[in-house]
């Protein structure tokens, strides 16, 4: 099971304070679907303005990125630059 770790501030608003969530998923899309099943409405929050770090690698526009059974997943704001 991949481990999703949420910022406590984000978790307070969308997951009732749950910051660590285990999800059975093979890629980003199925991971978000799994989260949505448990926390309806969360997928919409993640679809806009959030990038994802899977095992430390940041993806700004994720969809099909692989998620392993031991993966650690963090959501973070999309990063711009100058």
């Amino acid at each position, binding site marked *: 099971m991949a481990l999703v*770790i949420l*910022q*406590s*501030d984000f978790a*307070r*608003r969308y997951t009732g304070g749950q910051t660590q969530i285990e999800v059975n998923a093979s890629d980003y899309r199925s991971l978000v679907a799994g989260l949505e099943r448990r926390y309806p409405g969360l997928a919409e929050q993640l679809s*806009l*303005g959030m990038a994802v*770090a899977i*095992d*430390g*690698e*940041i*993806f*700004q*526009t994720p969809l099909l*990125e692989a998620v392993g059974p031991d993966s*650690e997943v*963090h*959501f*973070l*704001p*999309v*990063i*711009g*630059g*100058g």
Partner: protein
Amino acid sequence: MGNEQNTFRVVGTRPVRPDGVDKVTGRAEFGADHQLPGMLVGVVVRSPHAHARIKSIDVSAARAVPGVLAVVTAADLVDLPSELSSGGEAPINFRHVSHNVIARDKALYEGHAVAALAATSTAIAAAAAALIKVDYEVLPHVIDVLEAMREGAPLLHPDLFTTGVTPTPTTASNVAGVTEFALGDIAKGFAEAEVIIEREYTTQPVHQGYIEPHAVTATFGADGTASVWCSSQGQFMVREFCAKLMGMDIGQIRVIPLEIGGGFGGKTTVYLEPLALALSRQSGRPVKMVMSRGDVFKATGPTSGTHVKIKLGAKRDGTFTAGEMTLKYQAGAYPGSPAFLGGMTGLTPYLFEHAKATCYDVVSNRPKSAAYRAPGAPMAAFGVESAIDELAQQLNIDPLELRLKNAATTGMRTLYGAKLPVVGYVETLEAAKAHPHYSAPLGPNQGRGIASGFWFNIGGPSSAAIHVNEDGTVEVVTGNPDIGGSRASMAMMAAEVLGIDFAHVKPTIGDTAQIAYSFLTGGSRVTFATGKAVIEAAEATVLQLCGRAAKMWKVEPYEVEWRAGSAHCTRVDDTTRAPVTLAEIAHQAGRTGGPISGNVSINAAGAGPGFGTHLCDVEVDPETGSVKIIRYTAIQDVGRAIHPAYVEGQLQGGAVQGIGWALNEAYLYDEKGCLLNSGFLDYRMPVASDLPMIDTVLVEVPNPGHPFGVRGVGEVPIVPPLAAVANAVSRATGVRMTDLPLSPPHVLAQLDRAKTAG
């Protein structure tokens, strides 16, 4: 392709940039240089008030002037809903972009566009613009970030409710949003501390200061499609933004990128482009618009002014136990400051088990902030790196040793959650320690400052096409404007893979009809991401070249190997087939299957984060407060320098811009919120005579996410200088400097205050 050292033939050399001669001889075509037959001159009418309701706009007198062929107001752009959409560098509220291009109901800063017109000459346009009557109801204004956050402050947007807080507010506020990052237990971390430093810092908003003002030429064809020539950091960004604001399909607009005379993040949005399109659509003629320097200062994005509070806890041996940042950033007229990026970067150079950042995005009556190299990071780093310097003094530990003791390493968990991939921060600190600069003696009134900085660097969508010409020369087409010497890097990477001379590769920046989509030039992504696309396109081309050689030799493709620019037959004991060069294969291409080319579009992942460490020596005149930079060394992990001279240039440029931010640059407003210093004479950026040669050290810890090990390099070098300079001045004077800029009057006032106090 591996990351082995010293195996490159072209990468790491220093050829002359392909665009250099045209640029230094004046032949290069920048934004203001483009001309079209029958072209009109477009001008903008701007608000003279910092905050005003627009009661009415009467354009009738202007429209009646002979030679005026179009007049537009906000009504000529689509009235977009307020919602976040994908686009540009981050999710964007295009209603805000549209209102920033031309005010709809309220002017939110002095210089905010309220109308535009096009005429047959500059004189007619200026005279007609003066006849546009705007009836304003002047409103109270607010500029300072803390003032804007106060209850009862003039409210910019009655429909702006703070996001990121619980419960959702029911009253409007200038605080657009709050973002929080937390790691561990911050209270526990401070409870474990034996020494705590808590300080407040301020930085002023500064402009990117690009030499070339914004300029555009736009024309509509008879079929309703449009063409736009402009200098920007992304032709695809301009196309997308214009389509949205004009209510057009993306395919109806072609954007042709001209040379760009500096951007630094400030050209990652649109200002004039939609207005030129609207004027051209109305007049049926091409329209050219060029900003003055005053327009640039008054109406385009500076970076945020900030108020930063830092609290650091440590053991007496220097081990950090907790770090906390409270970051309040001006967004300007519309939400979207980089406060959250300050929160994600400020503490990242160090291992903290317990850390927290609370980031406030605050609107005020200034131009909407725009990206500026490593957006948001320098201000947070100024606070953190200053506090670390003070901590080092309190603990009597060498500031480099204190950083080394706590330095971020590969696999460290950051405040934003993710673990760091392979990074070379420690290597930059070790290089600083070993550099002669660090042990050089200092004279009277001199001080040495040290500071470090971090930036993520990003990847994203990029496209590249390689065409092999009939004579064996090669074209490389990419979709990213060249703002830092990227043409040379693209050509060098292609030459490396193809095994041919750099001189035989011609790099070109394609327009939106010539190359597939590429995300804009920003975030230090081009040499990494577009470079990766170029490498893959070159590899695809090599496959074709080997296939053609196989046909020529009547062998199987797997029996052909590409080495040093030639196809070699690997069939054992076959000496009849001599190697054939790329040029020989190209010459026969028509007979072996047609032209040879490689086209690749990717969404590049694997960007390698960057760290830098800067050393700065200053001399302070105690009589005047004047600060002179006497020595400066910028050290950075660059992964792999494709063209070391241009990488060094990035480090030097970033350092100089940061020095200006630290010492001189600031916007000065009168009591009505109007800008007093909208020109380079009064807005003082450093010039060559102000500075010593900026020394550089390129540390190369290859990024495993790139075939050649490339990391982005353009953002990191502006992160450390603010604190490096302030720490040097603090050590030279014995007075801790917490507010920028360190102009002579300010430094003198701090010295006088310290004398009075003690």
